[in-house]
């Protein structure tokens, strides 16, 4: 039956996006598609992208990837959230945890009670003290969450921090085992069908011509198929997200192994710090309008907390995205579809979202428009929500100590975001989604962490007597602190569970 003929899928690019796509298609749709990946070792991969979101666990599980093996192979550590330093004000520090504040179970969100107690003048601890994920992170401890929803240890989630140069090779091994083919070589030409405009084949430097039905563009920033060949316009968001460069440099880990990523605000951007088993990744993401490459590099070198393990490396990008990710028979996944800076570790998540969409909407050889539309609708939603969340971090600040911060503090933000901020400012209300990467607790963490405090609270939180609320909060704070203290250290847990192979 022609209906059931296999679709020849050509994946262009062998970075994280390319091999995640190859592995997922080969594993989940073995009868429906033949997977062929083309990559150029000479061009190489971007090689950064080390901090992830908890969603990646579902991706790995669906593919049947063993967690401990994967973590050992990629020299991974656990990630309970992101620490933001110096964002709202110089000297501030808060953690955006993968988890809730309070138990996250009541009808009214915990922070409403917290706001009420503060407004009544009671001395209550910082909101951070009421999050199990934050407490664990601050103590550099880790233990997998408890499955019993009554337990306080069920109120946090986790993700991974791994070596970006090891993840793609790890997936490659799996994907090839599941039947994916790979060709090494540089693509020099892309052939299109004269009538439909669809992509027919890619031609390599060697002259080899590779034909396919469906092309997945994982070529990174060049966006070889979607951007260069099909000319899909780029929506530039750099007026809201002005950072356009990064300088990256790994160093030896000389500090305790923290189970979180740090994002430390700098004069013209921010710096990441990602502790892995064998090293710590560092990088300064900055806006070239406000600082020179040399200054940025010097600032990074001065700031890293360990012996440098490589020369600083420069990367350039523009915040924004291709208007559509799926055009004709070409679907862009990863940097080829767009880029949002790594402040909240969303890039690999977006890769995953696109792959999930592709798997769920996998077409026939003759692609129907409705699948494309649904895919693009889903990706639009993802990008839009992440974009606003990232802009919030820059905008919610009182920093006025550099031209960069003056700009982001005073810039006009998208209306979709200013409305969200206004709702929170008035009454601590967070626009609820059932689906989406960042749910209520994430927004609350950043608002409160960066000094946007509600003027009012949900009137339902006014009902219980103050003493009862205070008692409950104190008990919760103690329970969190005690159970965090009872958990093993992060380094010890990693060493027991998923130690990397000793260096050869």
């Amino acid at each position, binding site marked *: 039956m022609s*209906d*059931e003929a296999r679709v020849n899928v050509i994946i262009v690019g062998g970075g994280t996006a390319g091999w995640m796509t190859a592995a997922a298609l080969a594993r*989940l*749709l*073995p*009868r*429906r*598609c033949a997977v062929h990946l083309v990559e150029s070792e000479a061009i190489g991969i971007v090689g950064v992208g080390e901090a992830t979101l908890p969603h990646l666990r579902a991706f790995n599980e*669906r593919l049947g990837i063993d967690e401990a093996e994967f973590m050992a192979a990629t020299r991974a550590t656990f990630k309970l959230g992101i620490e933001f330093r110096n964002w709202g004000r110089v000297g501030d520090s808060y953690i955006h945890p993968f988890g809730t504040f309070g138990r996250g179970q009541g*009808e009214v969100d915990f922070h409403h009670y917290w706001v009420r107690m503060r407004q009544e003048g009671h001395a209550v601890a910082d909101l951070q003290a009421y999050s199990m994920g934050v407490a664990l992170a601050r103590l550099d401890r880790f233990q997998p969450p408890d499955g019993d929803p009554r337990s306080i240890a069920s109120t946090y989630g986790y993700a991974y921090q791994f070596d970006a140069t090891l993840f793609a090779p790890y997936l490659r091994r799996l994907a090839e085992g599941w039947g994916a083919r790979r060709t090494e070589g540089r693509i020099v030409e892309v052939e299109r069908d004269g009538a439909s405009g669809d992509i027919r084949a890619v031609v390599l430097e060697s002259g080899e011509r590779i034909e396919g039905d469906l092309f997945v563009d994982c070529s990174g920033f060049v966006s070889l198929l979607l951007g260069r060949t099909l000319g899909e316009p780029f929506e530039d968001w750099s007026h809201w997200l002005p950072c356009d460069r990064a300088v990256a440099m790994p160093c030896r880990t000389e500090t305790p192994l923290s189970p979180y990523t740090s994002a430390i605000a700098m004069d013209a951007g921010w710096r990441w710090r990602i502790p892995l088993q064998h090293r710590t990744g560092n990088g300064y993401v900055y806006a070239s309008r406000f600082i020179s490459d040399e200054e940025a590099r010097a600032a990074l070198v001065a700031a890293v907390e360990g012996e440098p393990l490589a020369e600083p490396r420069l990367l350039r990008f523009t915040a924004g995205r291709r208007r559509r990710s799926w055009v004709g028979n070409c679907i862009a996944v990863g940097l080829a579809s767009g880029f949002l800076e790594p402040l909240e570790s969303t890039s690999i998540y977006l890769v995953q979202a696109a792959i999930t969409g592709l*798997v*769920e*909407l*996998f077409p*026939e050889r003759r692609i*129907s428009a*409705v*699948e494309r*539309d*649904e895919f693009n*609708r*889903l990706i639009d939603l993802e990008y839009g929500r992440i974009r606003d969340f990232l802009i919030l971090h820059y905008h919610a600040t009182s920093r006025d100590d550099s031209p960069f911060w003056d700009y982001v503090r005073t810039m006009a933000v998208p209306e979709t975001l200013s*409305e969200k901020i*206004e*709702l929170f400012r*008035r*009454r601590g*209300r967070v*626009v609820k*989604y*059932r*689906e989406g990467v960042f749910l209520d607790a994430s927004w609350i963490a950043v608002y409160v962490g960066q000094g946007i405090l509600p*003027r*009012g609270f*949900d*009137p*339902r939180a*006014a*009902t219980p007597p103050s003493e009862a609320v205070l008692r409950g909060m104190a008990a919760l704070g103690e329970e969190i602190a005690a159970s965090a203290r009872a958990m093993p250290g992060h380094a010890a847990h990693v060493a027991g569970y998923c130690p990397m192979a000793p260096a050869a």
Partner: protein
Amino acid sequence: MNARPIERVVIAGGGIVAWSAAAALKRKLPRLAVTVLASEPPADALAERIPATLPSILGFHADLGLRDEDTIVRARSALRLGTEFVAWNHGLAPYVHAYAPHGRPLGTTSFHLHWVRLARDGAPPPFDAFSPAAALARAGRLAPPGAEPEGLEHGLVLDLPLHSAMMRAYALHLGATARETGLADVRLRADGFVGSLRLDDGSELGGDLFVDATGPAALLRSRLDPAFEDWSPWLPCDRVLLGESPAQPEPPLLDRAEALPAGWRWRSGGVERTAHGLAYASGALSDEAAARLLAEGGARAAGAPVALRQGRRPRPWLRNCVAIGDAAVAVEPLEWTGLHLAHSAIDRLVAMMPDRDCAAVELAEYNRQSEAEANRVRDFLALHYLASARPEPFWRDAAAARPPASLAHTLSLFRERGRLPFHEEETFSRDSWLAVLLGQGVIPRRVDPLALSVPREEAVRRIEDLGASLAAAGPGLATHGEYLTHLTRQVRR
């Protein structure tokens, strides 16, 4: 800045919707002074008059602190597991839409994709044969609480007068007050807010927030703006005739919704009486003919036909006046969404209570959610007509209508490959959509690739096994009557 909290709420309307709102507000926000301007609900307020309700009513009650003994035993409710749809597609057998999953996923793929695979080149048992809830409902049996099939939910068939009286008593018990005179006039302030209501006895009733539960006329809210979004292109019925007949000794667990040449007729079994009704298009069926059809269904009419204008107010909440129930969204009884939408609006109102200034940004969020919810309900109801297959002009026109964009997308994606797009604020679960789509014969053009990764023989075998195990359901379990008797005894004890 005007951040003074709302203290006085006035609710206009004296039916279930108004009293439920009063009870919810007093229960959740006890500091509010809540006054209900109670009058007999108008005949066209269908949310007040349709006894069949969705499973969400149980959560609403639990949230208010009402127990089964109040809402089921004392208020004489029956249970319902779903609806049986008869003759919506001429060529197909009746189907059941119950509130529960169909089948079990095979591997990581949804059961229905495998069923579609068999249906494309064979004739598997109908889709609802794989719903444990539908099997129970057809057999007229109920599993004891705690032992229901996974995911099963049931709704209630209310005794409307008792239910209304119970809500009223409960709201008063919680501290709401009632005013029993009529509404003479709505007084607006200079800034367009509602200032007060002038009452028939000459007095004035002031408040910070006015909740309009007066039915489709929206006596308060319509004074602020008349905007109305008309859904008649997709929901062609514009009349409803209600009726009743004596209760059956064992009320059926399924309501019956039967398509007729120019509309449809229903029956819901309650404890005290059986409710009947007919929804029809006045252009295609006269009121006399409608009365005959109702009588043929075994009912005597309860009142004159009521005119129905289906649609919604684009902004149910404007300034300090919020419309709920039929005042916000008016829909025919199909799928019993009237009271559900009212409850949902009440929950939203409680959760989003603003300050006295009713800031536009807060109301916009309320209205955005209301709109998304109402539109998907509209889509779900419209689906029944668009996916109908009957020869009469009424039905042919209905099936030929151009669907609203969100439903068009849902339909084309489903017709292509059996997937359903995700929407926020969706009232009906995926399984509900599937029950209607597949029950009315919308079969996807192709089999989803993920389903093909399970070998065909294995899929066939697992589907057959499941069908066989469900066919055996029923005997040994309680009948509806036994179940209710048991509940009553428990309460007495």
